[in-house]
Protein backbone atom coordinates (compact mmCIF):
# COMPACT_ATOMS: atom_id res chain seq x y z
CA UNK A 1 0.00 0.00 0.00
CA UNK A 2 2.80 2.34 1.05
CA UNK A 3 4.74 1.48 -2.12
CA UNK A 4 1.75 2.42 -4.33
CA UNK A 5 1.27 5.64 -2.39
CA UNK A 6 4.98 6.44 -2.72
CA UNK A 7 4.85 5.82 -6.49
CA UNK A 8 1.85 8.16 -6.87
CA UNK A 9 3.60 10.75 -4.71
CA UNK A 10 6.82 10.51 -6.76
CA UNK A 11 4.84 10.74 -10.01
CA UNK A 12 3.13 13.97 -8.89
CA UNK A 13 6.34 15.31 -7.31
CA UNK A 14 8.30 14.84 -10.54
CA UNK A 15 5.76 16.92 -12.42
CA UNK A 16 4.78 19.71 -10.02
CA UNK A 17 7.52 19.73 -7.37
CA UNK A 18 5.34 18.49 -4.53
CA UNK A 19 8.24 18.22 -2.07
CA UNK A 20 9.22 21.85 -2.57
CA UNK A 21 5.60 22.95 -2.17
CA UNK A 22 5.18 20.84 0.94
CA UNK A 23 8.38 22.24 2.43
CA UNK A 24 7.25 25.80 1.69
CA UNK A 25 3.81 25.27 3.19
CA UNK A 26 4.70 23.20 6.24
CA UNK A 27 8.20 24.33 7.18
CA UNK A 28 7.32 27.96 7.80
CA UNK A 29 9.18 28.93 11.00
CA UNK A 30 6.93 30.38 13.72
CA UNK A 31 8.86 32.74 15.94
CA UNK A 32 8.20 31.90 19.59
CA UNK A 33 6.45 28.63 18.67
CA UNK A 34 2.89 27.63 17.92
CA UNK A 35 0.06 29.33 19.80
CA UNK A 36 -3.69 29.11 20.18
CA UNK A 37 -3.85 32.84 19.44
CA UNK A 38 -2.81 32.14 15.83
CA UNK A 39 -5.70 29.83 14.95
CA UNK A 40 -8.26 32.47 13.88
CA UNK A 41 -7.04 32.88 10.29
CA UNK A 42 -7.08 29.12 9.65
CA UNK A 43 -10.51 28.89 11.26
CA UNK A 44 -11.79 31.61 8.91
CA UNK A 45 -10.55 29.66 5.92
CA UNK A 46 -12.22 26.52 7.25
CA UNK A 47 -15.54 28.31 7.84
CA UNK A 48 -15.43 29.73 4.32
CA UNK A 49 -14.82 26.27 2.81
CA UNK A 50 -17.72 24.87 4.82
CA UNK A 51 -19.93 27.78 3.74
CA UNK A 52 -19.02 27.04 0.11
CA UNK A 53 -19.84 23.33 0.51
CA UNK A 54 -23.16 23.87 2.32
CA UNK A 55 -24.02 26.72 -0.07
CA UNK A 56 -23.51 24.44 -3.08
CA UNK A 57 -25.68 21.75 -1.49
CA UNK A 58 -28.42 24.31 -0.87
CA UNK A 59 -28.22 25.49 -4.48
CA UNK A 60 -29.31 22.02 -5.66
CA UNK A 61 -32.77 22.86 -4.31
CA UNK A 62 -32.97 26.65 -3.97
CA UNK A 63 -34.72 28.59 -6.76
CA UNK A 64 -33.67 32.27 -6.96
CA UNK A 65 -37.01 33.65 -8.12
CA UNK A 66 -39.43 35.83 -6.20
CA UNK A 67 -42.17 33.24 -6.86
CA UNK A 68 -40.24 30.20 -5.70
CA UNK A 69 -37.45 31.34 -3.32
CA UNK A 70 -39.64 31.10 -0.21
CA UNK A 71 -41.28 27.82 -1.21
CA UNK A 72 -37.97 26.22 -2.18
CA UNK A 73 -36.42 27.27 1.15
CA UNK A 74 -39.43 25.84 3.01
CA UNK A 75 -38.98 22.68 0.93
CA UNK A 76 -35.31 22.48 1.98
CA UNK A 77 -36.28 22.81 5.64
CA UNK A 78 -39.24 20.40 5.64
CA UNK A 79 -38.76 17.91 2.83
CA UNK A 80 -35.11 17.57 1.77
CA UNK A 81 -33.18 14.94 3.78
CA UNK A 82 -31.02 16.80 6.33
CA UNK A 83 -31.86 20.03 4.47
CA UNK A 84 -32.86 21.79 7.70
CA UNK A 85 -29.44 20.99 9.18
CA UNK A 86 -27.44 22.07 6.12
CA UNK A 87 -29.39 25.34 5.90
CA UNK A 88 -29.06 26.01 9.64
CA UNK A 89 -25.33 25.23 9.46
CA UNK A 90 -24.97 27.68 6.56
CA UNK A 91 -26.94 30.32 8.48
CA UNK A 92 -24.90 30.00 11.67
CA UNK A 93 -21.71 29.61 9.65
CA UNK A 94 -22.19 33.15 8.35
CA UNK A 95 -22.46 34.43 11.93
CA UNK A 96 -19.40 32.40 12.90
CA UNK A 97 -17.49 33.97 10.05
CA UNK A 98 -18.31 37.49 11.29
CA UNK A 99 -17.36 36.59 14.87
CA UNK A 100 -14.13 34.98 13.65
CA UNK A 101 -13.24 38.04 11.54
CA UNK A 102 -13.66 40.21 14.64
CA UNK A 103 -11.53 37.77 16.67
CA UNK A 104 -8.83 37.63 13.97
CA UNK A 105 -8.73 41.42 13.58
CA UNK A 106 -8.67 41.88 17.35
CA UNK A 107 -5.74 39.47 17.67
CA UNK A 108 -3.79 41.25 14.92
CA UNK A 109 -4.60 44.63 16.48
CA UNK A 110 -3.72 43.63 20.06
CA UNK A 111 -0.52 41.85 18.98
CA UNK A 112 0.49 44.91 16.95
CA UNK A 113 0.87 42.61 13.94
CA UNK A 114 -0.35 45.30 11.51
CA UNK A 115 2.87 47.29 11.95
CA UNK A 116 5.76 47.47 9.49
CA UNK A 117 6.43 45.29 7.45
CA UNK A 118 2.86 43.85 7.60
CA UNK A 119 0.81 46.86 6.47
CA UNK A 120 -0.27 45.18 3.21
CA UNK A 121 -1.60 42.11 5.05
CA UNK A 122 -3.68 44.41 7.26
CA UNK A 123 -5.08 46.38 4.31
CA UNK A 124 -6.11 43.27 2.34
CA UNK A 125 -7.58 41.89 5.58
CA UNK A 126 -9.77 44.98 5.91
CA UNK A 127 -11.14 44.46 2.39
CA UNK A 128 -11.82 40.82 3.32
CA UNK A 129 -13.71 42.06 6.39
CA UNK A 130 -15.97 44.19 4.16
CA UNK A 131 -16.51 41.17 1.85
CA UNK A 132 -17.55 38.98 4.79
CA UNK A 133 -20.09 41.61 5.88
CA UNK A 134 -21.36 41.82 2.28
CA UNK A 135 -21.75 38.02 2.24
CA UNK A 136 -24.00 38.24 5.30
CA UNK A 137 -26.02 41.11 3.87
CA UNK A 138 -26.65 39.53 0.44
CA UNK A 139 -27.32 36.03 1.80
CA UNK A 140 -29.91 37.32 4.26
CA UNK A 141 -32.38 38.18 1.46
CA UNK A 142 -32.34 34.79 -0.24
CA UNK A 143 -34.95 32.91 1.90
CA UNK A 144 -37.42 35.65 0.84
CA UNK A 145 -39.44 35.84 4.04
CA UNK A 146 -40.51 39.00 5.87
CA UNK A 147 -37.30 39.11 7.92
CA UNK A 148 -35.16 38.83 4.78
CA UNK A 149 -37.17 41.34 2.77
CA UNK A 150 -37.27 44.05 5.42
CA UNK A 151 -33.68 43.66 6.56
CA UNK A 152 -32.66 44.23 2.94
CA UNK A 153 -35.03 47.16 2.55
CA UNK A 154 -33.51 48.82 5.64
CA UNK A 155 -29.96 48.03 4.48
CA UNK A 156 -30.49 49.40 0.98
CA UNK A 157 -32.12 52.56 2.40
CA UNK A 158 -29.03 53.08 4.56
CA UNK A 159 -26.79 52.58 1.52
CA UNK A 160 -28.89 55.15 -0.36
CA UNK A 161 -27.60 57.82 2.04
CA UNK A 162 -24.01 57.50 0.78
CA UNK A 163 -23.02 60.69 -1.04
CA UNK A 164 -22.47 60.54 -4.84
CA UNK A 165 -22.66 56.73 -5.30
CA UNK A 166 -25.46 55.96 -2.81
CA UNK A 167 -28.37 56.53 -5.18
CA UNK A 168 -26.74 54.50 -7.94
CA UNK A 169 -25.84 51.65 -5.57
CA UNK A 170 -29.35 51.48 -4.10
CA UNK A 171 -31.00 51.55 -7.54
CA UNK A 172 -28.55 48.97 -8.88
CA UNK A 173 -29.13 46.57 -5.99
CA UNK A 174 -32.91 46.94 -5.93
CA UNK A 175 -33.32 46.92 -9.73
CA UNK A 176 -36.67 48.66 -9.29
CA UNK A 177 -38.64 50.94 -6.95
CA UNK A 178 -39.21 48.14 -4.39
CA UNK A 179 -37.31 44.91 -3.73
CA UNK A 180 -38.52 42.23 -6.14
CA UNK A 181 -37.29 39.68 -8.67
CA UNK A 182 -34.44 41.87 -9.90
CA UNK A 183 -33.22 42.46 -6.34
CA UNK A 184 -33.27 38.74 -5.61
CA UNK A 185 -31.42 37.90 -8.85
CA UNK A 186 -28.75 40.52 -8.21
CA UNK A 187 -28.26 39.57 -4.57
CA UNK A 188 -28.04 35.90 -5.58
CA UNK A 189 -25.40 36.54 -8.24
CA UNK A 190 -23.39 38.75 -5.88
CA UNK A 191 -23.67 36.15 -3.10
CA UNK A 192 -22.77 33.02 -5.09
CA UNK A 193 -20.52 34.37 -7.84
CA UNK A 194 -18.94 37.77 -7.26
CA UNK A 195 -18.22 37.65 -3.51
CA UNK A 196 -16.81 34.08 -3.44
CA UNK A 197 -14.52 34.91 -6.37
CA UNK A 198 -13.39 38.15 -4.69
CA UNK A 199 -12.88 36.42 -1.37
CA UNK A 200 -10.85 33.57 -2.86
CA UNK A 201 -8.60 35.95 -4.79
CA UNK A 202 -8.04 38.30 -1.88
CA UNK A 203 -7.60 35.50 0.66
CA UNK A 204 -4.86 34.10 -1.60
CA UNK A 205 -3.22 37.52 -1.74
CA UNK A 206 -3.58 37.87 2.05
CA UNK A 207 -1.80 34.53 2.55
CA UNK A 208 0.88 35.40 0.01
CA UNK A 209 1.63 38.69 1.82
CA UNK A 210 1.59 36.84 5.13
CA UNK A 211 4.12 34.28 3.92
CA UNK A 212 6.27 37.01 2.38
CA UNK A 213 6.45 39.11 5.55
CA UNK A 214 6.39 36.11 7.92
CA UNK A 215 4.43 35.74 11.18
CA UNK A 216 4.90 38.59 13.67
CA UNK A 217 5.35 36.25 16.66
CA UNK A 218 4.64 37.05 20.31
CA UNK A 219 4.83 40.67 21.48
CA UNK A 220 6.98 39.86 24.50
CA UNK A 221 9.75 37.53 25.53
CA UNK A 222 13.51 37.71 25.31
CA UNK A 223 15.34 36.83 22.08
CA UNK A 224 16.65 33.68 23.79
CA UNK A 225 13.15 32.58 24.79
CA UNK A 226 11.71 33.25 21.34
CA UNK A 227 14.57 31.45 19.63
CA UNK A 228 14.23 28.46 21.95
CA UNK A 229 10.51 28.13 21.26
CA UNK A 230 10.64 28.79 17.50
CA UNK A 231 9.07 25.90 15.64
CA UNK A 232 7.88 24.96 12.17
CA UNK A 233 4.25 25.35 11.11
CA UNK A 234 3.94 21.55 11.01
CA UNK A 235 3.07 19.69 13.21
CA UNK A 236 2.26 21.75 16.33
CA UNK A 237 0.51 24.75 14.76
CA UNK A 238 -1.27 22.45 12.29
CA UNK A 239 -2.53 20.39 15.23
CA UNK A 240 -3.76 23.49 17.09
CA UNK A 241 -5.48 24.71 13.92
CA UNK A 242 -7.21 21.33 13.44
CA UNK A 243 -8.45 21.26 17.05
CA UNK A 244 -9.72 24.86 16.74
CA UNK A 245 -11.48 24.05 13.43
CA UNK A 246 -13.13 21.00 15.01
CA UNK A 247 -14.29 23.17 17.93
CA UNK A 248 -15.67 25.80 15.52
CA UNK A 249 -17.43 23.09 13.50
CA UNK A 250 -19.02 21.65 16.63
CA UNK A 251 -20.07 25.08 17.92
CA UNK A 252 -21.81 25.85 14.60
CA UNK A 253 -23.52 22.42 14.66
CA UNK A 254 -24.63 23.05 18.24
CA UNK A 255 -26.13 26.42 17.28
CA UNK A 256 -27.86 24.80 14.30
CA UNK A 257 -29.49 22.35 16.73
CA UNK A 258 -30.42 24.87 19.40
CA UNK A 259 -31.75 27.55 17.02
CA UNK A 260 -32.48 26.04 13.58
CA UNK A 261 -33.61 28.28 10.74
CA UNK A 262 -37.35 28.92 10.78
CA UNK A 263 -38.90 31.09 8.11
CA UNK A 264 -41.46 33.78 8.86
CA UNK A 265 -44.28 34.70 6.48
CA UNK A 266 -43.44 35.01 2.77
CA UNK A 267 -42.05 38.46 1.83
CA UNK A 268 -44.62 41.16 1.06
CA UNK A 269 -44.21 44.91 0.56
CA UNK A 270 -46.38 45.39 3.67
CA UNK A 271 -44.45 44.79 6.91
CA UNK A 272 -47.72 44.16 8.81
CA UNK A 273 -46.86 43.42 12.44
CA UNK A 274 -43.23 42.64 11.63
CA UNK A 275 -40.68 45.20 12.84
CA UNK A 276 -37.83 45.43 10.32
CA UNK A 277 -34.44 44.54 11.81
CA UNK A 278 -31.06 43.68 10.28
CA UNK A 279 -28.97 40.58 11.06
CA UNK A 280 -27.68 40.50 14.67
CA UNK A 281 -24.17 41.67 13.81
CA UNK A 282 -25.55 44.91 12.38
CA UNK A 283 -27.86 45.48 15.39
CA UNK A 284 -25.38 47.77 17.20
CA UNK A 285 -25.37 50.13 14.22
CA UNK A 286 -29.14 49.88 13.87
CA UNK A 287 -29.59 50.78 17.55
CA UNK A 288 -27.14 53.67 17.28
CA UNK A 289 -29.23 55.06 14.41
CA UNK A 290 -32.23 55.21 16.75
CA UNK A 291 -30.47 57.83 18.87
CA UNK A 292 -31.88 61.34 18.57
CA UNK A 293 -28.51 62.70 17.49
CA UNK A 294 -28.73 60.52 14.38
CA UNK A 295 -32.33 61.45 13.45
CA UNK A 296 -33.13 63.41 10.33
CA UNK A 297 -31.53 63.20 6.89
CA UNK A 298 -28.12 64.50 7.98
CA UNK A 299 -28.13 62.53 11.24
CA UNK A 300 -28.84 59.28 9.39
CA UNK A 301 -26.02 60.01 6.96
CA UNK A 302 -23.73 60.75 9.90
CA UNK A 303 -24.59 57.55 11.80
CA UNK A 304 -25.01 55.13 8.92
CA UNK A 305 -22.32 56.27 6.51
CA UNK A 306 -19.95 58.91 7.87
CA UNK A 307 -19.04 57.32 11.23
CA UNK A 308 -18.67 53.69 9.99
CA UNK A 309 -16.83 54.98 6.89
CA UNK A 310 -14.45 57.08 8.97
CA UNK A 311 -13.90 54.17 11.33
CA UNK A 312 -12.93 51.93 8.40
CA UNK A 313 -10.64 54.65 7.03
CA UNK A 314 -9.04 55.01 10.44
CA UNK A 315 -8.43 51.26 10.54
CA UNK A 316 -6.90 51.41 7.06
CA UNK A 317 -4.63 54.28 8.09
CA UNK A 318 -3.67 52.65 11.40
CA UNK A 319 -0.31 51.13 10.34
CA UNK A 320 0.71 54.50 8.89
CA UNK A 321 -0.40 56.53 11.94
CA UNK A 322 0.91 54.15 14.60
CA UNK A 323 4.56 53.90 13.50
CA UNK A 324 6.03 53.02 16.88
CA UNK A 325 7.76 49.61 16.78
CA UNK A 326 6.36 48.77 20.25
CA UNK A 327 4.01 45.78 19.92
CA UNK A 328 3.29 44.90 23.55
CA UNK A 329 -0.37 45.80 24.06
CA UNK A 330 0.24 46.55 27.75
CA UNK A 331 2.65 49.28 26.67
CA UNK A 332 0.13 50.74 24.17
CA UNK A 333 -2.58 52.12 26.51
CA UNK A 334 -4.41 54.09 23.79
CA UNK A 335 -4.74 51.01 21.60
CA UNK A 336 -5.91 48.84 24.50
CA UNK A 337 -8.42 51.46 25.67
CA UNK A 338 -9.77 52.06 22.14
CA UNK A 339 -10.27 48.34 21.53
CA UNK A 340 -12.00 47.90 24.90
CA UNK A 341 -14.33 50.87 24.30
CA UNK A 342 -15.26 49.66 20.79
CA UNK A 343 -15.95 46.11 21.99
CA UNK A 344 -18.00 47.23 25.02
CA UNK A 345 -19.86 49.70 22.77
CA UNK A 346 -20.78 46.96 20.27
CA UNK A 347 -21.95 44.59 23.04
CA UNK A 348 -23.96 47.24 24.91
CA UNK A 349 -25.64 48.54 21.74
CA UNK A 350 -26.46 45.02 20.53
CA UNK A 351 -28.09 44.15 23.87
CA UNK A 352 -29.89 47.54 23.82
CA UNK A 353 -31.31 46.71 20.37
CA UNK A 354 -32.66 43.40 21.71
CA UNK A 355 -34.21 45.15 24.73
CA UNK A 356 -35.61 47.82 22.41
CA UNK A 357 -37.85 45.20 20.71
CA UNK A 358 -40.23 45.38 23.69
CA UNK A 359 -40.95 49.04 23.04
CA UNK A 360 -41.74 48.76 19.34
CA UNK A 361 -45.43 47.86 19.54
Amino acid at each position, binding site marked *: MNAIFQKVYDFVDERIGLKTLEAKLMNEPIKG*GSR*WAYVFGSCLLFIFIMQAITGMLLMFYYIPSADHAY*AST*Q*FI*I*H*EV*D*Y*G*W*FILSYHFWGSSAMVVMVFAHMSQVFLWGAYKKPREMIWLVGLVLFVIVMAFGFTGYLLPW*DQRAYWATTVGVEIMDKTPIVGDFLARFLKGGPTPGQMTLSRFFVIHVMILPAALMGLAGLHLFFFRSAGPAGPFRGTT*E*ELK*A*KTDFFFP*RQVWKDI*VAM*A*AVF*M*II*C*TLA*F*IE*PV*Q*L*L*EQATPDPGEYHPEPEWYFLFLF*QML*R*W*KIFSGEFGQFLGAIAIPGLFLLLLAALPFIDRSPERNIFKRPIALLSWTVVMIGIV*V*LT*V*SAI*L*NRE*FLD
Partner: protein
Amino acid sequence: MAHPVENLSSIKLAWAVAWSAFWTGFPFKLIVALLLLAGQVHPWEGAGLVTLLVVSIPIDIWAVGLTARTVFLERLSMEIRGPVGVSLWWQGAVLGALVLGGAYYAVGTTVAVGQKVAAAIIALIKKFYPALPIAEQITLELLLWTIPTAIVLLVFVLLWLHLFGWRVKRVVVASGQTSSASFVERVRQWDYARVPADPTLVLVSFAGVIVTLTVVFWVLLPVTTPTPHPDYPLQQVQKASKPVKPEELINKTEATLKKAEAVLAALEKEKSRETTKGKSK
Protein backbone atom coordinates in the same frame (compact mmCIF):
# COMPACT_ATOMS: atom_id res chain seq x y z
CA MET B 1 14.21 31.55 52.19
CA ALA B 2 10.83 31.69 50.52
CA HIS B 3 9.97 29.09 47.93
CA PRO B 4 10.30 30.55 44.38
CA VAL B 5 6.57 29.92 43.75
CA GLU B 6 5.70 32.43 46.49
CA ASN B 7 7.09 35.24 44.31
CA LEU B 8 4.46 34.52 41.65
CA SER B 9 0.99 36.05 41.88
CA SER B 10 -1.66 33.47 42.90
CA ILE B 11 -4.12 34.96 40.42
CA LYS B 12 -1.66 34.78 37.51
CA LEU B 13 -0.70 31.20 38.35
CA ALA B 14 -4.31 30.06 38.70
CA TRP B 15 -5.24 31.85 35.47
CA ALA B 16 -2.41 30.17 33.57
CA VAL B 17 -3.56 26.73 34.73
CA ALA B 18 -7.35 27.20 34.61
CA TRP B 19 -7.56 29.06 31.27
CA SER B 20 -5.45 26.47 29.44
CA ALA B 21 -7.26 23.60 31.17
CA PHE B 22 -10.63 24.99 30.13
CA TRP B 23 -9.69 25.13 26.44
CA THR B 24 -7.94 21.76 26.59
CA GLY B 25 -11.08 20.03 27.84
CA PHE B 26 -13.59 22.13 25.88
CA PRO B 27 -13.50 20.26 22.51
CA PHE B 28 -14.09 16.89 24.22
CA LYS B 29 -17.08 18.23 26.15
CA LEU B 30 -18.37 19.77 22.95
CA ILE B 31 -18.35 16.35 21.25
CA VAL B 32 -20.54 14.94 24.05
CA ALA B 33 -22.89 17.95 23.92
CA LEU B 34 -23.20 17.65 20.14
CA LEU B 35 -24.02 13.94 20.25
CA LEU B 36 -26.65 14.62 22.91
CA LEU B 37 -28.16 17.38 20.76
CA ALA B 38 -28.16 15.11 17.68
CA GLY B 39 -30.09 12.59 19.76
CA GLN B 40 -32.49 15.41 20.70
CA VAL B 41 -31.42 15.43 24.36
CA HIS B 42 -30.78 18.93 25.77
CA PRO B 43 -27.38 19.05 27.48
CA TRP B 44 -28.46 22.00 29.63
CA GLU B 45 -31.25 20.19 31.54
CA GLY B 46 -32.25 16.85 33.05
CA ALA B 47 -30.46 13.69 31.97
CA GLY B 48 -28.45 15.55 29.33
CA LEU B 49 -26.95 17.91 31.92
CA VAL B 50 -26.16 15.04 34.30
CA THR B 51 -24.46 13.10 31.47
CA LEU B 52 -22.41 16.12 30.43
CA LEU B 53 -21.32 16.87 34.00
CA VAL B 54 -20.35 13.25 34.69
CA VAL B 55 -18.36 13.01 31.45
CA SER B 56 -16.72 16.39 32.18
CA ILE B 57 -15.14 15.20 35.46
CA PRO B 58 -12.45 12.86 34.01
CA ILE B 59 -11.87 15.31 31.13
CA ASP B 60 -11.25 18.18 33.57
CA ILE B 61 -9.01 16.08 35.81
CA TRP B 62 -6.87 15.14 32.81
CA ALA B 63 -6.82 18.72 31.44
CA VAL B 64 -5.91 20.34 34.78
CA GLY B 65 -3.14 17.81 35.39
CA LEU B 66 -1.66 18.29 31.92
CA THR B 67 -1.72 22.10 31.90
CA ALA B 68 -0.51 22.38 35.51
CA ARG B 69 2.58 20.30 34.75
CA THR B 70 3.31 22.45 31.69
CA VAL B 71 2.92 25.70 33.63
CA PHE B 72 5.08 24.48 36.51
CA LEU B 73 7.85 23.36 34.20
CA GLU B 74 7.82 26.38 31.94
CA ARG B 75 7.30 29.21 34.44
CA LEU B 76 8.67 27.78 37.68
CA SER B 77 11.27 25.26 36.50
CA MET B 78 9.53 22.73 38.72
CA GLU B 79 8.70 19.09 38.12
CA ILE B 80 5.90 17.55 40.18
CA ARG B 81 6.05 14.09 41.77
CA GLY B 82 2.93 11.96 41.33
CA PRO B 83 -0.40 12.87 39.71
CA VAL B 84 -1.72 16.38 40.35
CA GLY B 85 -4.91 16.37 38.26
CA VAL B 86 -7.25 14.81 40.87
CA SER B 87 -5.90 16.90 43.74
CA LEU B 88 -6.14 20.20 41.86
CA TRP B 89 -9.52 19.32 40.35
CA TRP B 90 -11.32 18.57 43.61
CA GLN B 91 -9.85 21.62 45.33
CA GLY B 92 -10.84 23.81 42.39
CA ALA B 93 -14.32 22.25 42.34
CA VAL B 94 -14.93 22.79 46.08
CA LEU B 95 -13.68 26.38 45.88
CA GLY B 96 -15.75 26.88 42.73
CA ALA B 97 -18.91 25.61 44.46
CA LEU B 98 -18.34 27.96 47.42
CA VAL B 99 -17.50 31.00 45.32
CA LEU B 100 -20.28 30.26 42.83
CA GLY B 101 -22.82 30.11 45.67
CA GLY B 102 -21.64 33.48 46.96
CA ALA B 103 -21.50 34.94 43.46
CA TYR B 104 -25.03 33.72 42.67
CA TYR B 105 -26.39 35.57 45.71
CA ALA B 106 -24.22 38.69 45.31
CA VAL B 107 -24.74 39.08 41.56
CA GLY B 108 -28.50 38.48 41.91
CA THR B 109 -28.71 41.14 44.62
CA THR B 110 -26.57 43.57 42.60
CA VAL B 111 -28.77 43.09 39.53
CA ALA B 112 -31.96 43.67 41.55
CA VAL B 113 -30.62 46.72 43.41
CA GLY B 114 -28.85 48.03 40.30
CA GLN B 115 -32.02 47.86 38.22
CA LYS B 116 -34.01 49.67 40.92
CA VAL B 117 -31.36 52.39 41.25
CA ALA B 118 -31.12 52.70 37.44
CA ALA B 119 -34.91 53.07 37.19
CA ALA B 120 -34.83 55.74 39.90
CA ILE B 121 -32.04 57.66 38.13
CA ILE B 122 -33.94 57.45 34.81
CA ALA B 123 -37.11 58.71 36.56
CA LEU B 124 -35.10 61.61 37.97
CA ILE B 125 -33.65 62.46 34.55
CA LYS B 126 -37.14 62.31 33.06
CA LYS B 127 -38.32 64.90 35.58
CA PHE B 128 -35.90 67.42 34.10
CA TYR B 129 -35.92 66.06 30.58
CA PRO B 130 -39.29 64.39 29.92
CA ALA B 131 -38.56 63.85 26.23
CA LEU B 132 -35.73 61.37 26.92
CA PRO B 133 -35.88 59.07 23.87
CA ILE B 134 -36.42 55.37 24.46
CA ALA B 135 -33.22 54.22 22.66
CA GLU B 136 -31.00 56.45 24.82
CA GLN B 137 -32.93 55.45 27.93
CA ILE B 138 -32.41 51.73 27.27
CA THR B 139 -28.64 52.08 26.78
CA LEU B 140 -28.25 54.36 29.80
CA GLU B 141 -30.29 52.05 32.04
CA LEU B 142 -28.37 49.03 30.78
CA LEU B 143 -25.01 50.64 31.53
CA LEU B 144 -26.18 51.79 34.97
CA TRP B 145 -26.90 48.28 36.24
CA THR B 146 -24.48 46.17 34.18
CA ILE B 147 -21.34 48.10 35.23
CA PRO B 148 -21.72 47.35 39.00
CA THR B 149 -22.84 43.79 38.16
CA ALA B 150 -19.76 43.22 35.98
CA ILE B 151 -17.52 44.58 38.76
CA VAL B 152 -19.10 42.25 41.37
CA LEU B 153 -18.76 39.30 38.98
CA LEU B 154 -15.13 40.18 38.31
CA VAL B 155 -14.40 40.37 42.06
CA PHE B 156 -15.77 36.84 42.51
CA VAL B 157 -13.77 35.52 39.55
CA LEU B 158 -10.61 37.08 41.02
CA LEU B 159 -11.49 35.64 44.43
CA TRP B 160 -11.77 32.12 42.99
CA LEU B 161 -8.53 32.58 41.04
CA HIS B 162 -6.76 33.82 44.17
CA LEU B 163 -7.98 30.87 46.26
CA PHE B 164 -7.25 28.32 43.54
CA GLY B 165 -3.80 29.87 42.99
CA TRP B 166 -3.12 29.53 46.69
CA ARG B 167 -3.97 25.80 46.52
CA VAL B 168 -1.85 25.38 43.37
CA LYS B 169 1.10 26.91 45.21
CA ARG B 170 0.62 24.45 48.11
CA VAL B 171 0.81 21.56 45.64
CA VAL B 172 4.01 22.95 44.13
CA VAL B 173 5.61 23.50 47.56
CA ALA B 174 4.60 20.02 48.74
CA SER B 175 5.63 17.93 45.73
CA GLY B 176 7.68 20.15 43.42
CA GLN B 177 11.30 19.43 42.49
CA THR B 178 13.44 22.11 40.92
CA SER B 179 14.55 21.14 37.43
CA SER B 180 18.22 21.75 36.71
CA ALA B 181 17.60 21.83 32.94
CA SER B 182 18.16 25.03 30.96
CA PHE B 183 15.22 27.00 29.54
CA VAL B 184 15.75 25.52 26.07
CA GLU B 185 15.84 21.98 27.49
CA ARG B 186 12.73 22.60 29.59
CA VAL B 187 10.85 23.91 26.55
CA ARG B 188 11.79 20.75 24.65
CA GLN B 189 10.85 18.65 27.70
CA TRP B 190 7.27 19.94 27.99
CA ASP B 191 6.98 20.04 24.23
CA TYR B 192 7.95 16.38 23.81
CA ALA B 193 5.76 15.45 26.77
CA ARG B 194 2.82 16.24 24.52
CA VAL B 195 4.09 14.33 21.50
CA PRO B 196 2.85 10.72 21.58
CA ALA B 197 5.43 7.92 21.67
CA ASP B 198 3.77 6.18 18.72
CA PRO B 199 2.30 8.94 16.50
CA THR B 200 1.01 6.51 13.83
CA LEU B 201 -0.97 4.53 16.41
CA VAL B 202 -2.41 7.72 17.89
CA LEU B 203 -3.34 9.10 14.45
CA VAL B 204 -5.02 5.84 13.38
CA SER B 205 -6.97 5.62 16.68
CA PHE B 206 -7.88 9.29 16.38
CA ALA B 207 -9.15 8.81 12.82
CA GLY B 208 -11.12 5.74 13.93
CA VAL B 209 -12.79 7.65 16.76
CA ILE B 210 -13.65 10.55 14.42
CA VAL B 211 -15.18 8.20 11.82
CA THR B 212 -17.22 6.39 14.52
CA LEU B 213 -18.44 9.66 16.02
CA THR B 214 -19.37 10.99 12.57
CA VAL B 215 -21.40 7.84 11.82
CA VAL B 216 -23.13 8.06 15.23
CA PHE B 217 -23.85 11.75 14.60
CA TRP B 218 -25.52 11.13 11.20
CA VAL B 219 -27.48 8.16 12.55
CA LEU B 220 -28.85 10.27 15.41
CA LEU B 221 -29.49 13.39 13.29
CA PRO B 222 -33.19 13.90 12.44
CA VAL B 223 -33.81 13.72 8.67
CA THR B 224 -36.34 16.56 8.56
CA THR B 225 -36.61 19.57 10.84
CA PRO B 226 -37.39 18.61 14.44
CA THR B 227 -38.60 22.15 15.16
CA PRO B 228 -40.87 23.51 12.41
CA HIS B 229 -42.13 27.09 12.89
CA PRO B 230 -45.42 26.88 14.79
CA ASP B 231 -47.01 29.73 12.81
CA TYR B 232 -45.53 29.25 9.34
CA PRO B 233 -45.38 25.52 8.52
CA LEU B 234 -44.79 24.13 5.06
CA GLN B 235 -47.79 24.82 2.84
CA GLN B 236 -48.74 21.49 1.32
CA VAL B 237 -49.99 22.27 -2.18
CA GLN B 238 -52.70 19.78 -3.10
CA LYS B 239 -53.09 19.25 -6.83
CA ALA B 240 -56.77 19.48 -7.80
CA SER B 241 -57.75 15.98 -8.94
CA LYS B 242 -60.07 15.84 -11.93
CA PRO B 243 -63.30 13.87 -11.39
CA VAL B 244 -63.32 10.64 -13.43
CA LYS B 245 -66.36 10.20 -15.73
CA PRO B 246 -66.27 6.58 -17.06
CA GLU B 247 -68.71 7.10 -19.99
CA GLU B 248 -66.84 10.15 -21.24
CA LEU B 249 -63.55 8.29 -20.92
CA ILE B 250 -64.82 5.28 -22.89
CA ASN B 251 -66.24 7.50 -25.65
CA LYS B 252 -62.97 9.44 -25.83
CA THR B 253 -60.92 6.24 -26.04
CA GLU B 254 -63.21 4.78 -28.69
CA ALA B 255 -62.91 7.95 -30.76
CA THR B 256 -59.11 7.85 -30.48
CA LEU B 257 -59.05 4.18 -31.52
CA LYS B 258 -61.37 4.84 -34.49
CA LYS B 259 -59.09 7.69 -35.55
CA ALA B 260 -56.06 5.41 -35.27
CA GLU B 261 -57.83 2.66 -37.29
CA ALA B 262 -58.66 5.16 -40.05
CA VAL B 263 -55.04 6.36 -40.19
CA LEU B 264 -53.80 2.76 -40.30
CA ALA B 265 -56.24 1.86 -43.10
CA ALA B 266 -55.18 4.90 -45.13
CA LEU B 267 -51.50 3.96 -44.69
CA GLU B 268 -52.13 0.37 -45.78
CA LYS B 269 -54.10 1.55 -48.83
CA GLU B 270 -51.27 3.86 -49.85
CA LYS B 271 -48.70 1.11 -49.39
CA SER B 272 -50.66 -1.39 -51.56
CA ARG B 273 -51.05 1.30 -54.25
CA GLU B 274 -47.26 1.88 -54.25
CA THR B 275 -46.65 -1.89 -54.49
CA THR B 276 -49.03 -2.20 -57.49
CA LYS B 277 -47.30 0.75 -59.23
CA GLY B 278 -43.91 -0.91 -58.70
CA LYS B 279 -45.06 -4.23 -60.17
CA SER B 280 -46.61 -2.59 -63.27
CA LYS B 281 -43.26 -0.80 -63.94
